[in-house]
C-alpha cells in the first residue's frame, strides 16, 4: 500500500505527469474500495432487494414467493380486499402514518423551542465553559437510548416518581395514568432527540460573526429584534439540519412507542416490525419500509437543494 500524494507535483512534463496522476487515482480507489464494497454490498444492495421484495407475493408462513409479482402490498396500504375481490378504503394504516408524522413534527417543534435558546446560551459562554456544556449534551447523545427510554417508565408509571411526587405535593388525587398514552410517547421522543437539535444549532451559532449582532445594536435594534432578524437567519442551516436530524429518526422510531405507548400510539416502526413478527407479511413490511425510506430521501433532497454548499448535515 502506498499513500496518495496530497498533490501530484507538476515538475514532470505532460505524459509523465498524467501517468503519476493515474497511479495516484488508482491508489485512492484501492484504498476506498474495501469500505465502498461493504457499504454497497451490505447497505445499498439490501435496500434494492427490499424494494424488489415489496413487489412479491407473501409466502403463507412468512417469506416471499419468488417470481410472483404483484402490487398487492401497496394496495393493502390503502384498501381492504373484500370477499368478492372489490376494494374498499381502509384508513387504518394511513392513520398510523399520519400519527407518526404528527408525533415527529411536534417533537421537532418542541425540541426546536428548547434547543435554540439552549444552543444560544452555550454559544455565548467562554470557550472553556462551552466545551463542558457541549460535553454534557453529548453524553446522553452517546448513551444507550433504550435504557434511557426505560428510565421514563420508572418516572411515568402509576406509583412512579412523578405520580408520588405530585401526590405528596397534594396536586393529584387518584392515579396519573400517563404511561401507555400518546403523551408518554411524545415525552419520550422529545427526550430522545433533544441533543440532535442542540448540536447542529450550536455548531452554526459557534461560527457566527457576533460583530453582525453589534452592528444591529448600533442600528438601534433591540435584543429580540437582533435575535430574530440577524442571529436566526444566520443560524438557519443549523436549525434546518437539527430539524431533519430530529424529524427523520423520530418518524422511524420503534422502541419508544413500543415501551411508552399503548395500542393507540402505534407508529410506522411498530407497524413495520409487526409484519416480520405476528402478521408475517414480508412484502407489506418491505413496502412500508420502502415508503418510509422514500419520504426520508425526499426530505434530504429538499434540504440538499435548498442549502447547497452551506455546510453539510453531518
Amino acid at each position, binding site marked *: *500500500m*502506498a*499513500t*496518495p*500524494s*496530497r*498533490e*501530484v507535483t507538476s515538475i514532470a512534463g505532460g505524459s509523465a505527469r498524467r501517468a503519476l496522476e493515474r497511479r495516484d*487515482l488508482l491508489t*485512492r480507489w*484501492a*484504498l*476506498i474500495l*474495501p*469500505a*465502498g464494497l*461493504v*457499504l*454497497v454490498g*451490505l447497505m*445499498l444492495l*439490501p*435496500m434494492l*432487494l427490499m424494494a424488489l421484495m415489496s413487489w412479491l407475493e407473501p409466502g403463507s408462513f412468512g*417469506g416471499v414467493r419468488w417470481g410472483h409479482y404483484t402490487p398487492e402490498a401497496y394496495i393493502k396500504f390503502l384498501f381492504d380486499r373484500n370477499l368478492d375481490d372489490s376494494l374498499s378504503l381502509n384508513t387504518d394504516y394511513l392513520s398510523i402514518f399520519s400519527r407518526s408524522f404528527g408525533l415527529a413534527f411536534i417533537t421537532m417543534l418542541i425540541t426546536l423551542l*428548547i434547543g435554540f*435558546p*439552549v444552543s*444560544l446560551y452555550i454559544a*455565548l459562554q467562554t470557550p472553556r465553559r462551552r466545551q463542558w456544556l457541549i460535553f454534557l449534551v453529548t*453524553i*446522553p447523545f*452517546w*448513551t*444507550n*437510548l*433504550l*435504557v*434511557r427510554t*426505560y*428510565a421514563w417508565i*420508572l*418516572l411515568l*408509571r402509576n406509583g412512579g*416518581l412523578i405520580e408520588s411526587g405530585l401526590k405528596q405535593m397534594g396536586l393529584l388525587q387518584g392515579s396519573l395514568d400517563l404511561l401507555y398514552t400518546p403523551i408518554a410517547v411524545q415525552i419520550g421522543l422529545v427526550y430522545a432527540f433533544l441533543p440532535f437539535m442542540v448540536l447542529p444549532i450550536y455548531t452554526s451559532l459557534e461560527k457566527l460573526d*457576533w460583530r453582525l*449582532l453589534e452592528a444591529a445594536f448600533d442600528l438601534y435594534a433591540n435584543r429580540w429584534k437582533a*435575535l430574530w432578524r440577524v442571529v436566526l437567519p444566520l443560524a438557519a442551516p443549523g436549525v434546518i439540519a437539527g430539524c431533519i436530524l430530529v424529524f*427523520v429518526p423520530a*418518524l422511524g*422510531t*420503534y*422502541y419508544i412507542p413500543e*415501551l411508552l405507548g399503548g395500542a393507540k400510539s402505534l407508529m*410506522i*416502526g411498530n407497524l413495520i416490525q409487526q409484519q416480520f413478527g405476528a402478521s408475517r407479511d414480508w412484502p407489506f413490511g418491505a413496502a412500508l*419500509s*420502502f415508503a418510509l*425510506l422514500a419520504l*426520508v430521501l425526499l426530505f434530504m433532497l429538499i434540504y440538499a437543494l435548498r442549502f447547497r454548499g452551506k455546510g453539510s448535515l453531518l
Partner: protein
Amino acid sequence: MINPRNPLWRFPGLFWVMVLFFAFLYVPIFVLVALSFNANQVATIWTGFSWDWYKGVLDNPNILRAAQNSLIVATAATLLSTLVAVAAAVGMTGRRFRGQNLFNGLVGLPLLVPEIVTAVASLLFFLAIGLQLGLLTVILAHTVFCIPFAYLPIRARLEGLDPRLAEAATDLYASPWHTFRRVTLPLLVPGIVSGAMLAFITSMDDFVITFFVAGAGATTLPVYIFGMIRTGITPEVNAISTLLLGVSVLLVALSFVVGQRGQAR
C-alpha cells in the same frame, strides 16, 4: 471573539431554559442509577442502599452470555469498520478526484436511512442469500453502520494535519509507505482511537438492527434488556441498565479526552 461579559449578549431567561434542559436530560438517568441501588424490591420508594441487584445480574448466566455476545460483536465490528475507515479516509484526503462524491454519499447512508429500514433490508438480504441468523449476521450489520462513526473523526483529523510534514518525509527520500507508516499514522492515532471508540459505543448500544438480524443464539445486551423490560420491571433491569450506561459514559469521556489531547498537540 465575543466577550461573555458584554451585557449586550445577555438574553433574559436563557439561563433558566438551560437549567431546565439539563435537568430534563439528566433526571431520568439519575433516577435509574439511584433505583438500581435501592434495597426496596417493589415500589419506587427509597428504603436503603443495596448491592443485591448487581449480584443478581452477575449471577444470571443469560445476562453474562448476552454481555459476552455484545463484547464479541462490538469488538469485531469496531476492528473491521475502523480498518476500512482508515484506508478510505487516507484515500479521500488531499486532492479532489473522480468518484469522491459518490463515496461521500455512500458513507453517509447509514446515518441518514432510518434504523428500522436498515434493519428490515439487512434481515431480508441475509435470509435471501441463505445466511443463518446469528453472531455473524449481527457483526456484518454492525460493521456497516459503524463505518461512518469511525470514518468521520479519522477524516477530520487527517484534514487537520499539516501536509508539510509528509512532504518533508518525501523530501528525505522516504517511500510513500514509509511516510505513511512513520509520519501520517502516528499523527493519526488520536483520530483513529476516538473513531474506534465511537464505533464501539454505537455497536454496544444498538438495539433495533440487532433485534432484527440476531438469531436465537446471538442475543446482545440491549436485546436482552428489551426482553426483560417487556416481561416486567425488576430491580435487575435497573442494575444492568446502569452498568451499560456506565460503560458508554466512560468511553465517551475517554474519547473526549483523547480528542482534546490530539487537538492540543
